[in-house]
């Protein structure tokens, strides 16, 4: 599977260390065009302004959770198709169900390695 490494990616997390870690891992995979946002509101406006090929967002954030962000994205005609990878600490059944309902494209459990992340992204974009 050849991943398109020129994809424009937005990393959303309220903890800047975590944004850096995820950015670092994305870079390890070979992505170069990575942007970040510190909360759902900022993310939403950035997604509106930029045409991202993928959003990698934390689930558990204050003010606006990852799911709320996703719902807002899906509810906005102009950006509703933005692929969305949810980062979560737990993959309990009810979480997965909620993610499916909200229209998540894929999820990944923390902590993860570059290999796992790559695989999760590849799943979203089949050949």
């Amino acid at each position, binding site marked *: 599977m050849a991943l398109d490494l020129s994809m424009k990616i937005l990393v959303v997390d309220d903890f800047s260390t975590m944004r850096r870690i995820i950015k670092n891992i994305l870079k390890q995979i070979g992505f170069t065009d990575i942007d970040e946002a510190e909360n759902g509101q900022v993310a939403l406006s950035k997604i509106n302004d930029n045409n991202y090929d993928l959003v990698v967002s934390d689930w558990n954030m204050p003010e606006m959770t990852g799911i709320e962000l996703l719902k807002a994205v899906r509810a906005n005609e102009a950006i509703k198709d933005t692929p969305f990878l949810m980062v979560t600490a737990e993959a309990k059944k009810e979480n*997965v169900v909620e993610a499916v309902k909200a229209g998540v494209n894929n999820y990944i459990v923390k902590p993860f390695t570059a290999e796992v992340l790559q695989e999760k992204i590849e799943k979203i974009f089949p050949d």
Partner: protein
Amino acid sequence: MIDDSMKEIINDFVQEALELLDTLSENFIELEKNPEDKELLNTIFRAAHTIKGSAGFLGFQNLVELAHSAENILNRLRQGEIKLTSDMMDYLLKTMDILMLMIRNINDTGQEGDFDNAEIINKLNMLALDEGGTGNTAAAGEQNTAAEDIEKKAEAEAQIKIQEQNEEKAKKKENLDDKDSKIEKTLNPTNKTNNNEKHPKRKVRNLGDILLEDNLMSSDELSQILKEKEKEEKKEESIEIESISNIVPPQPQMHPAVSVSAETTIRVDVERLDNVMNLVGELVLSRNRIFNIASKLEFKYPEDEFTESLIQVVSNLNLITTDLQLAVMKTRMQPVKKVFSKFPRMVRDLSKELGKEIELNIAGEETELDKSVIEEIGDPLVHLIRNSIDHGIEMPEDRIKAGKPKAGLIKLSAEHEGNYIIIEVSDDGKGMDPNILRKKAIEKGLIDEKTAFSISDKDALSLIFAPGFSTKDKVTEISGRGVGMDVVKTNIQKLNGIIDIESEKGKGSDIILKLPLTVAIIQTLIIGIEDEVFAIPLNSVVETLRISESSIQTIDNHEVINLRKSVLSLLRLSEEFGIESASESASDGKAKVLSNKEVYVVVVALAEKRIGIVVDTLYGQEEVVIKSLGDYQFGYKGISGATITGDGKVVLIMDIASMIDILQKR
């Protein structure tokens, strides 16, 4: 490749995690007051969760385990499954302490170190289970393991899948493709648009597709979920349409402001800021010089057009420099909250330990001051507050007897006053008795009897700052080591700050710290002694007096004056610095120091001490940059550095601390 960026990330993690823990301990205290506060519980939970999450990435396994146990309790608390107990709070706070230690250790060594947390983890897990009652607990436990099972299963299967995928996929493919397309339509109609509008090149799969493909969910299960989703949506539709139209449209307008704020903070090495500050200092010196020269030119060539434009440019430069200086100073400012935030926890722990009831009231924590000052005031404040808890506030029964509310009150406040910050620690405890302090000081041999009773009550209060002074007969673990208040004095002195104590027996004590906002560029009072010019830091100047030489009295060979019923010791710098008196040399007729002549006394204060410096001339106020004299400061006590004034002269800056020392040693 990973090494350098890893180090940076770990640094970031340490910083952020410590900040989080700081606010956490504050949140916990808040929580103890409002144990049902869902919002607060969520915040606390999220913080533990966040630390756990990033620690996991960085491979700090011990940290993850401990944070995980805390997170467990917190999660059950926020779900309302268990109730917060005092015992639980103690252990949670202890956990925060250990986390803090571990993270500090990571900061120092790059490794999480050998912490054996088995015991506390055990206790936390017990607490998480115990509280809800057995029936509840078992259910919750099951739920947990069930959930974990799914998690594990998912992960394990994902792993196996990677290896087996190829063959399996080949088998399943036709089957799946068929399912996929059906489900896709129901699952997410947006998928279609995905393929044409924005991402024309890419096909995109949904989580549902992926779960199916990986056999993590059966198609029946998935359609079930999707049906539920549809149902939910229909139910919500009527409301949602409204709320979405309410929520979504305003967002575009928010963009500019919000997206700008996203990128506005960066972390800067303090060294760089120091460097900028130094350069601004140099600029201030040059500005002063130009300002001085320009005014001389204006005097010499008043009508000249070039002079006029020069004056204009110079006053502009003046404004800009002042603004620049302020701006640079602000980059080094931090809210005093950074220090204050640890006190609620301290007060809680100590009052619990002593069996006292104490409420801590904090005001003005957003007040900002220089980073270097922030770093120095932590310890003094710890001691002052400990002192209030230990010596100030009485036991609840004593308070009731005295007709006071059962719970004692300690107030901690910060506010700006001109170029100073005023920090005040006050309590409504039993106050201090000057006579008891006098007796103690005599007993400890810190002061002789005669002096003890000649000093004013106010000065007697200052005795608590004498090294080796402790009024409690029994040394308590909290503040009775007899070093505490001495530390307060030393640190405040270091910052050129002033300490003021007020205390009324039975009513309480009030300790006021007055600190300069910054240290490098200071306002000074330029004074003259004979023909020599000196600068006295304005921070330390309390007032200036004009007195007649005849009002100076001599007690025990000390020159003193009586200032508003308090005895003020005087220091003559002409003696100290060996400045030849003009009246003695009689080389000019300007002799000012004659017994009936008037002289100026500059009253200076440092920490709790006040003295008067006798000077001949007051020239005025000037902003100066302190330059260290380094090796050239050959043995002169009383000088802290030098500066260049506007007229290009090198002027020595007095060191008030050593002046006071000189006077005391006599």
